[in-house]
């Protein structure tokens, strides 16, 4: 077994774990964390694909590596938006409770 295959199996488990957390956690923040864990698993899978595709003197296929860089930035944007929504919902609820 090579290191790439090992991390590929690791990514498979991370995806399962992340998906489980993102479905069953009842706290929204925990779901957001689990979503990030799941996303990292998906990126790792791309990384394994990249590593296996060595050639032309490169340590890996640069295309999936570039895709992961784009993906990490997109996932961060998603997390920022989700967290902002969560905090706003929390603040509005708190204000409503205070009025009551």
């Amino acid at each position, binding site marked *: 077994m090579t290191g790439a295959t090992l991390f590929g199996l690791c990514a498979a488990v991370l995806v399962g774990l992340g998906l489980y957390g*993102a479905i069953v956690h009842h706290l929204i923040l925990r779901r957001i964390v689990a979503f990030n864990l*799941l996303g990292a698993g998906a990126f790792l*899978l791309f990384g394994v*694909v990249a590593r296996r595709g060595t050639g032309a003197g490169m340590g890996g296929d640069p295309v999936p590596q570039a895709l992961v860089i784009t993906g990490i930035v997109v996932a961060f944007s*998603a997390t920022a938006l989700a967290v902002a*929504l*969560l905090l*706003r919902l929390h603040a*509005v*609820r708190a204000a409503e409770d205070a009025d009551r």
Partner: protein
Amino acid sequence: MTPGAAVLPCAGDPAGALLVLAIVLPTAGFLLALSVGGGRAERVALLFLAGGFAVAIAIVAAIWRSGHALSYALGGWTPPLGIALRADGLSAVMAMTTALVVGAVALFGRQNFAAPAPGVEARVPLSFWTLLLAVTTALNLIWFAGDLFSLYVALELLTFTAVPLVCLDGRADTLEAALRYMLFALMGSVLYLLGTALLYSAYGTLDIALLSERVRPEPAVWTAAALMTAGLVAKTALFPLHLWLPPAHAGAPPAASALLSALVVKGSFFLLVRLWFDVLPGLPSRAPAELLAALGAAAVLMGSVLALRQARLKLLIAYSTVAQIGYLFLMFPLASGPAGGPVAAGALTGGMLQAVSHATAKAAMFMAAGVMAGALGHDRIAGLAGTARALPMSMFAFGLGGAALIGLPPSGGFLAKWLLLTASVQSGQWWWAAVMLTGGLFTCGYVFMVVGRAMGEKDASEPRIIAAPITGQAVALALAVISMLLGLAALAPLDLVLVGRPTLAVVACR
């Protein structure tokens, strides 16, 4: 030697450049609207959307005239290394629908999202106009991108525009609906992304055209197909993953609801069509197609029954969207029959026509409902009496939209259902026809429930109905009339939907 000149002669194709323009124009508008800000975002948006409308017409015209698909290699780099934009008949039809509905939403939104004073920037107007431009970029990219990863970025763009539109009013329940929508959508995107990783691992490309030649039935492909389908189904709100849709679509401001129900859910649906018919044509797809259609049938029945039981008008329309999305999925087993056969071609045209017809009709209904709710001060169906007399134009728009959903001739819904019914009878799958007919009866039920109430005499004890501005009503009516006349597409000499489809013979659908 430039890469453009060296690698790809078609990069300079003037018609292909239209596809670039369809994506660049709204993006430039978004950047400009955000940077000038102030009260000028509205004017920037209207200007760039008008330009986008002209581009959409030009794309349809180019495909109509030439009879084959357009393509453009970005930067002159051909796939698999580069990214290509492609427009076949399917994408042209959806792009035209987008330009039409977004334009209508912009005109409708002018009365609700004007700047508070000349040159003064406020939260809701700036957000609305910038998001409207961004949603156009995202949708056009979904119709035209030929690369599965670019489509992932497009899906995320679409999510990031749709979610803030849901909770523009900032109330706790719409924020909650937006957050729930966001979680579903993100999950869907990640599952889709996992699928692209697996496809790349097996074939070393994400280009749709190249994949369609290389894909073979093997474990990586089946796993990828299952993951991507599950993700896209969650984003399209197909039963049983529909729970997020009604609160989100009913809670948004009317202009946004129209956009979300008419176009945004069609984005992920369109990708499902691309996935099964263009990326994976080499896969024996009988069983998955049957499964999707079974879920669609359940959505038709459940959504319709739930729509009948709603007390609020906007929720009724939102549940109707759940049901109408179900119809879209009935096309999968019908269109995956013997490739190239007239049955499959008819089913595909029928399915896409249903998408377009629902887009225009549902946008009209949400707008009309918004006008009514604004005039009444509420949207309880029980309190609608007298609305038909006070707001005849809006009521007429709602009724026409409803008639298109039911499928009365000569509406687009009529032709769509006719094509799908014919395909199901011809292929011996009459049970899907039974679902369509039952769903039609339910649709009659909930449309007449609203129209009947509104026709009633107003109780003297109810508060007066405020007059509503005419522009919004006229826009809703225009969209409803368009959806009512879409069935006349049957008279056209060319079936635009089928242009550029290698697996399907270009045959007239009648």
